C-alpha cells in the first residue's frame, strides 16, 4: 500500500437501496419508475394535511431478508422517527426514518478484493422513505417530482473498516449482488435504486484514533465510487503532509471534472430535530414472521460461491456464477440435468466461455438464451460419455445456439458422434501408418514430434470425430510395435 505512504485511509459507506415493493413505504401509491412527473402519488405522498402513514409489510419483509442474510440482530420491537429539514422535494418537512431503534444491527458483508476474502461489519440497517426529486431549470424555476417520494429505502451503514476506493467499490458490488440475489432491489445505480455516501478520513499508520472525516455525497456509479474515494484520500493525505488540517464537511463529487468540492461545512450541518414518530406504533417482529422469512430466504451470493468452490470450481468461475442469481440458477439447473457434481467444472467452463460469450456477442440476456440449461446439460453429457470431442461439441453448441435444436437430436441426425471404438480407431491408425512409411521410420528413429503429424492424419481421415486421446494411445502403441 505504498500509494498512501505513512498514512492509511479509513472509509465507511452509507448505502441507500430502494426496495422493489409495488407500493410506497407508508401509502398505497405505486412505486413505478419513469412515470409522468407526480403521477405516482396520492394524498399521503403529497403531504396533504390529515393523512397518516400506514407501514408496508412487504418493505419490512424485504429489510428482514437483508438483515437475516447479513447476520444482523433483528430488533423484536423497533421504532420510526421523524428527521426534519425543509426542502421542496420533502413533502412533510420531515422524512420518516429510524434513529435509536433500527430494525437490524450488527451483521457483516463479505466480498473479495482480488482473491482475498474480506468481511466488513455493519453498524445497522434501517428502513426509511425516499425523498422526491427537484429539477432546476436553467431559467431559474425549480420543478418538483414526487414520484420517488415515499419509495421504501433501506440504509445500510458499514463500520469504518474499508481502506481504499477499490475495497469500497468491491463492497458496493457485493451489496448489489446481495440485494439482487435476495430479490429485494434491482441495485441499479444509474436509476438511483442503489446510492452511496462515503465517510472518508486518513490517519498515520499505527494510530488508533480516527482522523477528521469528510462525507462524500452523490457518488452514484461503481466507477465513481473508487475514483471519488481515492481522490478524497489523496486530497486529505496531501493536506496533512503539508501540515494542513482536514475540515469536517460534506463534499460533492463532480464526475465530469473528476474532483470533489465543498458542499456544506460543520456549522451549516442540519439539526434534524429527531422526534419519535407518533403516527406509527412500535413495529413488532414476532418469531413466526422471522421464521417465515428465514425459511424462504434465497441463497446469498457468498453461500453460492462457497457451494461452488466445494463442487471443485476455480475461484474465478465460482465468483462469476455467484454474481447474478440468474447465472447461478442456470448453472444449478444445468448441473442437475447433467447428472450432478461430476459435470461441475465442465458446466462452469462452458457457461463462462461459450454461452456467455455468445450471449454477449449478440447482446442477449440469459433468460432469452436459445440454449437453455437442459440443452446445455445434454451437450455436456455427450462430452462426458465420449460421444463428442471438445471441438465437435463447440460446433454442436454453435449450431444449436443459432437453430434452437437440441444437441442430442442434432448429433443423432447428422451422425456427429465421436469414434471411440478401439478397433475402428486402430484400423484407421494402421492405414495412416502404412501410408506414411518414411515418417513412421523417422518417428521410430526418435523423432517423437511426428506423433502430432499422425494424429492430425487420423483426425482428418475421421472427419474430426475420433477421440483424440484414444488416437494418441493407439498410435503410440502401434508405432512402438515394430522396430
Amino acid at each position, binding site marked *: 500500500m505504498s500509494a498512501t505512504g505513512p498514512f492509511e485511509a479509513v472509509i465507511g459507506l452509507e448505502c441507500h437501496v430502494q426496495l422493489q415493493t409495488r407500493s410506497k413505504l407508508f401509502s398505497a401509491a405505486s412505486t413505478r419508475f419513469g412515470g409522468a412527473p407526480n403521477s405516482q402519488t396520492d*394524498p399521503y405522498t403529497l403531504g396533504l*394535511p390529515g393523512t397518516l402513514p400506514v407501514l408496508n409489510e412487504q418493505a419490512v419483509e424485504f429489510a428482514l431478508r437483508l438483515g437475516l442474510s447479513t447476520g444482523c440482530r433483528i430488533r423484536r420491537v423497533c421504532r420510526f422517527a421523524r428527521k426534519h429539514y425543509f426542502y421542496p422535494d420533502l413533502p412533510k418537512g420531515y422524512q420518516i426514518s429510524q434513529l435509536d431503534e433500527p430494525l437490524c444491527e450488527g451483521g457483516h458483508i463479505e466480498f473479495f478484493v482480488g482473491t482475498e476474502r474480506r468481511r466488513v461489519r455493519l453498524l445497522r440497517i434501517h428502513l426509511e422513505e425516499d425523498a422526491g426529486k427537484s429539477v432546476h431549470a436553467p431559467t431559474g424555476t425549480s420543478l418538483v417530482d414526487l414520484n420517488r417520494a415515499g419509495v421504501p429505502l433501506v440504509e445500510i451503514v458499514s463500520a469504518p473498516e474499508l481502506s481504499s476506493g477499490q475495497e469500497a467499490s468491491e463492497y458496493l458490488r457485493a451489496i448489489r449482488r446481495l440485494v439482487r440475489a435476495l430479490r429485494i432491489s434491482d441495485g441499479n445505480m444509474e436509476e438511483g435504486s442503489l446510492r452511496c455516501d462515503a465517510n472518508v478520513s486518513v490517519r498515520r499508520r499505527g494510530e488508533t484514533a480516527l482522523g477528521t472525516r469528510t462525507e462524500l455525497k452523490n457518488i452514484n456509479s461503481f466507477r465513481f465510487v473508487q475514483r471519488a474515494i481515492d481522490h478524497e484520500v489523496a486530497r486529505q493525505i496531501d493536506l496533512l503532509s503539508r501540515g494542513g488540517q482536514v475540515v469536517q464537511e460534506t463534499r460533492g463529487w463532480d464526475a465530469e471534472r473528476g474532483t470533489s468540492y465543498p458542499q456544506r461545512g460543520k456549522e451549516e450541518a442540519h439539526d434534524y430535530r429527531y*422526534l419519535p414518530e407518533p403516527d406509527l406504533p412500535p413495529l413488532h417482529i414476532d418469531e413466526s414472521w422471522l421464521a417465515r422469512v428465514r425459511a424462504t430466504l434465497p441463497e446469498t451470493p457468498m453461500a453460492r460461491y462457497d457451494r461452488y468452490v466445494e463442487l471443485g470450481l476455480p475461484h474465478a468461475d465460482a465468483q462469476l456464477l455467484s454474481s447474478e442469481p440468474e447465472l447461478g440458477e442456470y448453472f444449478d439447473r444445468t448441473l442437475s440435468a447433467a447428472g450432478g457434481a461430476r459435470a461441475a467444472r465442465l458446466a462452469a467452463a462452458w457457461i463462462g466461455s461459450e454461452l456467455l460469450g455468445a450471449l454477449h456477442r449478440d447482446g442477449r440476456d440469459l433468460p432469452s438464451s436459445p440454449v437453455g440449461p437442459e440443452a446445455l446439460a445434454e451437450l455436456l453429457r455427450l462430452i462426458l460419455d465420449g460421444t463428442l470431442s471438445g471441438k465437435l461439441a463447440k460446433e454442436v453448441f454453435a449450431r444449436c445456439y443459432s437453430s434452437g435444436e437440441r444437441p442430442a437430436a442434432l448429433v443423432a441426425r447428422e451422425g456427429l458422434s465421436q469414434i471411440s471404438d478401439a478397433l475402428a480407431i486402430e484400423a484407421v491408425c494402421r492405414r495412416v501408418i502404412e501410408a506414411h512409411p518414411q515418417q513412421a521410420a523417422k518417428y521410430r528413429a526418435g523423432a517423437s514430434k511426428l506423433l502430432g503429424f499422425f494424429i492430425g492424419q487420423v483426425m482428418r481421415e475421421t472427419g474430426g470425430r475420433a477421440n483424440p486421446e484414444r488416437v494418441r494411445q493407439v498410435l503410440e502403441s502401434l508405432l512402438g510395435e515394430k522396430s
Partner: protein
Amino acid sequence: MDLAFLSAVEISRQVRARQVSAVEVTRHFLDRAARLDARLGCFLLLDPEGALAQAAEVDAACARGEDLPLCGVPIGIKDILCTRGLTTTAGSRILAGFVPPYDATCVERLRRAGGVVLGKLNLDEFAMGSSGENSAFGPTRNPWDPSRVPGGSSSGSAAAVSAGLCALSLGTDTGGSIRQPAALCGVSGLKPTYGRVSRHGLIAFASSLDQAGPIARSAEDLAVCLGVIAGPDPLDSTCLPEPVPDYLSACAASPAGLRIGVPRQYFSEGLEPAVERCVRQALAVLCAAGAVAVDVSLPLTPHTVSTYYLIATAEASSNLARYDGVRYGLRAAGSASLTEMYERTRAAGFGAEVRRRILLGTYALRSGYYDAYYRRASQVRRLIRDELLSALARCDLILSPTTPGVAFRLGERTEDPLAMYLSDIYTTSASLAGLPAVSIPCGLAPPADDPDGPLLPVGLQLIGPPLGESVLLRAAAAFQRLTDWHVRRPPAAMEIP
C-alpha cells in the same frame, strides 16, 4: 315545535318515523345559522347545497326503510377535520383555499350514518388555544354572553350546539379542546380514549394527543355519535382494534355502586369557589343515587401543564413543517430565494400563537436539548399515566371540574399566554394519559370578578379508564336524568325568531 333544541336521538327518530323530513330539518338549521351566526361566529363555512343534497339522500334512504342511527341529524364539523370538496382551513391563513380530496374517517362515518353536514366550524388556529380567539377568521362568541369567549379550541363546535345551530358537532381534543369549550358553553363533550376514533383526516396538531369526539346536548347524543365514529380504521395505525360497544345502552344503567374518585389536588388553589360548589353538588347528586365517593390523590398534577406543553409544542413544530407554500395553501409572492419563500410564507400564514408554539417546540427538539426536554417530558407523561391508572384501580371514574372558572371576556387573557395555558390544568392529564373524559354541564355560576354578572355554565369532568367511555356515559346520562342543567338554553336574547 322548535326543532333547534331537540336532541339528535329525537331528530333521528322523527325523521326515521317520517314525522319530519331530513330536508325540512336541514332547512330549519341552515336558516337559524344564517340568522344567528353573524353574532356568534360559529361557522367558517355553511354548505346549504351539499347539506340539502345529503338530506334528500337521507330521506330517500328512509323511504327505502334503511335504519340509520343519525337519520337527518344536522351536524357541524370543526374545520380541522377534512371534508371532501369543502374548503378546510384549520382556522389558518396558511391553508387558504385548501380543498381536501377526502373526508376524515369520522366525517365519512357520520355521513354514512345519515348525518347531514351543515358546514365547517370555527376554531383556534390549528386547534391551538383555549378561548376561540386564535382563529385567523375572527373569534367565536359565547352564546351565554357574546362578550365572553366560548372556550377553545373547538370554539365553534361548542357554541353552535349551545345556540341550537346544529344538533351535534365534531370537535377535536388535544389538551382539553372538546371538554373546555363544552364546559364554558353549557353543553356535553366527550374526548374518547386515544385511538378510539380514527385520526385520518384530522389535521394534526400533536399526533400523540389529538382525538376527535362529539359535542352534543346530552350524554345519549354523545353515545350515539361515538358509536358511529369509533372503531378501527386501516388508514390510522394508532387506532385501537377493540370492537365498539353499545354506548347507548350503557346510558340506561343506574349509577348505583359507581365508585367516583375525587382527586384532592383538583379542588385546591385557583379553583373558583362558585365552580367548586357546583361540582361538589353534582357529586352529591350522584352519591344520592347510589354512587360512592372515593378520595384519590394525583400528586403529579402540578406537572401536567408543563409536560403537556412540551410534548404538544414539539409535535406541533414537526406537524406544521409541511406548510411551506410549495404544494398547497398560501405562498408568499415575490421571494428571491427558497429560504425567503419559506420564511415569508410561514410568517404571513401562521398567527402569533401558532408561531409561538412552533418556536417552543423547535427549541425543545434541538440537538442536545432533546433529553432535557422531550425525553424528560415523555418520562413524566408515563408517570402521570401510571398515577392516573393506579387511581382508577381504586375507582370507576374520576370526577373534577373541567375548568377552574367560567367563561372569561374576549381579550381578557390574550396578553398572558401562560395564564391561558394554566387554565388547562384539569384537562391535560387525561390527554397525556390517553384516557377518555367527558364534560357535562353541572350548574350556573357568575364570574369570580363579577358576582352580579351573568350566570354562566359550569362543567363537570369525568375521566375514565382506557376504553371506559361506557362508564363515563353511564354516569353522565344518570346525572342528566337527575338534573336539568344540560337542557338549559342560553338567554332568550340569542333566540331571535
